[in-house]
C-alpha cells in the first residue's frame, strides 16, 4: 500500500525528560517513513511508542524535550513551524485518537456538539452546517441512531460508542494522517473489529495515512501493512505485518510466544527474558522490571 511519496518522515527522533539523576530518554533515535498505509507501532508500556506519536504532533508535555534530525510531514518541516502554524496542522491535517473515550471527551458537552465544534474550528461553517456534518460523520462511523447520540452526554454512551464518537471527531476535519494510540484496547473485541474496519476503509478510500499504536501484536499483524516493534525507546525490528510471525528479534519472538492461544495446550507460557543488550549501550530508563 506504500506509495512513492512519503507522507511523514521521521529521522533520529529523541525525546528526553529531565529527572533528578540526569535525563531519562523515552525515545532514542527512532527513524521511519510513512506512506498512505497502515503502520503499526508496537511495544509494551514504557517502550516509547505513545511518546513517539505525541512527539510528531508536538504534544510531549513539558519538561520533555524533543529533537530530530528530520521531522517532515507532506513536505513541511514540523520542527520549523511556530506554535500557530503547528495548531493549524494539528487536528486538521494530522489528528490523534486516544485510548479511552472516558478521558478524552468533554463530560459536560454533548457528543454531537463536540464533533460539530471540531468541524467549526477548522472550517468556516454555521451551527446548522456543522450539525449536519457531525450527524453525517456519526453515521459514517456506523452509529445507528446519530440523532440520539448527538444529543447524548459522554457518560450516556457505551465505550464503543464513545470511541466511535472520538474517531468521528478526529476525522471530521479530514486529516491526511491519523495517529491512533491504542484506539480500540478499551473496547470489546467485536466492537474493536468494527472500529478497525472504519479506519481501514478510511485509509483505502481517502488515502489517509495511519499510525496505529498498540501493544497487541496479533491485532497489528492482522490489521496493519507494516509493523515497527519498539523496545526501550528504540525500534528493534521492522516487519511486513503478514510476516510478523517470522520475526527474528528475540524481543519480538518473546512477545509472540508469551501470548496465550485459543488452540494452545494450556502449558506454562514461555516468559520473556529481557536481555540488557537490547537496550544497547545507553541506560535502561524506559524498561520496566517485571
Amino acid at each position, binding site marked *: 500500500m506504500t506509495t512513492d511519496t512519503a507522507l511523514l518522515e521521521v529521522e533520529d527522533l529523541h525525546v528526553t525528560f529531565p529527572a533528578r539523576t540526569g535525563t531519562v530518554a523515552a525515545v532514542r533515535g527512532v527513524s521511519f517513513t510513512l506512506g498512505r498505509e497502515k503502520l503499526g507501532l508496537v511495544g509494551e508500556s514504557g517502550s516509547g511508542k505513545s511518546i513517539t506519536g505525541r512527539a510528531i504532533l508536538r504534544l510531549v508535555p513539558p519538561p520533555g524535550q524533543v529533537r530530530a534530525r528530520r521531522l517532515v510531514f507532506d513536505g513541511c518541516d514540523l520542527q520549523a513551524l511556530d506554535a500557530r502554524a503547528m495548531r493549524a496542522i494539528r487536528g486538521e491535517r494530522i489528528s490523534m485518537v486516544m485510548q479511552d473515550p472516558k478521558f478524552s471527551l468533554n463530560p459536560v458537552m454533548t457528543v454531537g456538539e463536540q464533533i460539530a465544534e471540531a468541524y467549526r474550528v477548522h472550517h468556516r461553517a454555521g451551527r446548522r452546517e456543522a450539525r449536519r456534518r457531525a450527524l453525517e460523520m456519526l453515521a459514517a462511523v456506523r452509529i445507528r441512531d446519530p440523532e440520539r447520540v448527538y444529543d447524548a452526554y459522554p457518560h450516556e454512551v457505551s*465505550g464503543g460508542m464513545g470511541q466511535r464518537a472520538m474517531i468521528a471527531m478526529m476525522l471530521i476535519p479530514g486529516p491526511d494522517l491519523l495517529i491512533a494510540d491504542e484506539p480500540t484496547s478499551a473496547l470489546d473485541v467485536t466492537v474493536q473489529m468494527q472500529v478497525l*474496519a472504519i479506519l481501514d476503509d478510511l485509509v483505502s478510500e481517502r488515502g489517509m495515512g495511519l499510525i496505529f499504536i498498540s501493544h497487541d501484536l496479533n491485532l497489528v499483524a492482522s490489521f496493519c501493512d507494516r509493523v515497527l516493534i519498539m523496545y526501550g525507546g528504540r525500534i528493534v525490528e521492522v516487519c511486513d505485518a503478514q510476516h510478523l510471525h517470522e520475526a527474528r528479534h528475540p524481543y519480538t519472538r518473546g512477545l509472540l510466544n508469551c*501470548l496465550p*492461544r*485459543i488452540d494452545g495446550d494450556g502449558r506454562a507460557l514461555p516468559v520473556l527474558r529481557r536481555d540488557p543488550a537490547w537496550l544497547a549501550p545507553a541506560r535502561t530508563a524506559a524498561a520496566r522490571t517485571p
Partner: protein
Amino acid sequence: MTGTMAETASKAMIEVDDLHVTFGRGPRATHAVRGVGFRVAAGESYGLVGESGSGKSTVLRALAGLVEGWRGRMTVAGRVLGPRREAAFYKLVQMVFQDPYGSLHPRHTVERILSEPVAIHRLGAADRRIEQALGDVGLGPQFRYRYPHQLSGGQRQRVAIARALILEPKILLLDEPTSALDVSIQAEVLNLLARLKRERGLTYILVSHNLAVVAHMCTRLAVMNRGTIVEEMTVAQLRRGAPRHPYTKQLLTASRGYDRTAVDAFIDFAEAEAGSIART
C-alpha cells in the same frame, strides 16, 4: 442453560441456579443478570466469557457478596449463600480484581495491605504469613515495605494475589486479572495462577473478555451475552471450533484477529448500546 454435567454436580464447589441481578428500580431498572446457572467442581477452573455489559462480572460480584438485590440460589462448598456473607465465607472465597492500580490502598505499604486480612480473620503469625505470601507470588522480601506506586503493574497484581492467598482460601474469583497488564507480564501472572492452583488445588472462576486467556487457563467455560449464558462448553470443544451459538462463533472469529470481510457479517448481539448507561 444450567450445568449439564451431572457427574460434577455431586461434588460441586460452586453452584449457581437461576441467578437474577437487577440494578435500580422502576422503569430505569437494569436487569443485568437474567437466570444464570452453572456448576464448578472442586479444583476446576471455570471461565466466564463475554463482552462488557454481558453480566459476567456481575455474576462474580454476586457470588462474592458485592452486589445487593440478587435473586436465585447460590451455594459454595455446600452452604447456601444468604443476602450477607459472614467472615468465614471470605476465608474460603477471595477475589482478585482487574485493576491493580485501583484495588490496592495507595497509602498503605505492601506489609499493611497483607496484614489487614490476617488481622480481620485473627489468624495470627502475621509476620510469617506475609513473608510466605510474598514468596508464593514470587516477590522478594524487599517488596514488603514498598507502597503501590513504587511497584509496576505486574508486581501490584502479584500483591493483590498475595492478599487473596494469605487467607488460604479454596476458591479464587478472578475478575479480568491480567487485562491491565502487558502481555509479557500477563504470561507471568497466568503462570503464577496456574502454579498456585496446581499446588493448592484451588477452584477458580475466571472472568475475562479474552477468549485466549480463558482457553489457556480453564477446562470449561460459559459464554455470556446480555445477562444470560448463551452457551456452555468445554475448552476442548472451543478449540475444535465447535461452538454452536452464533454469538460464540462471532466472538471466536473476532478473537482470531482482524478480517475485513468477516466484520461486515457481524451482528450486534448486545443491544446494550441502545441502553443508557455503559458499564464495564
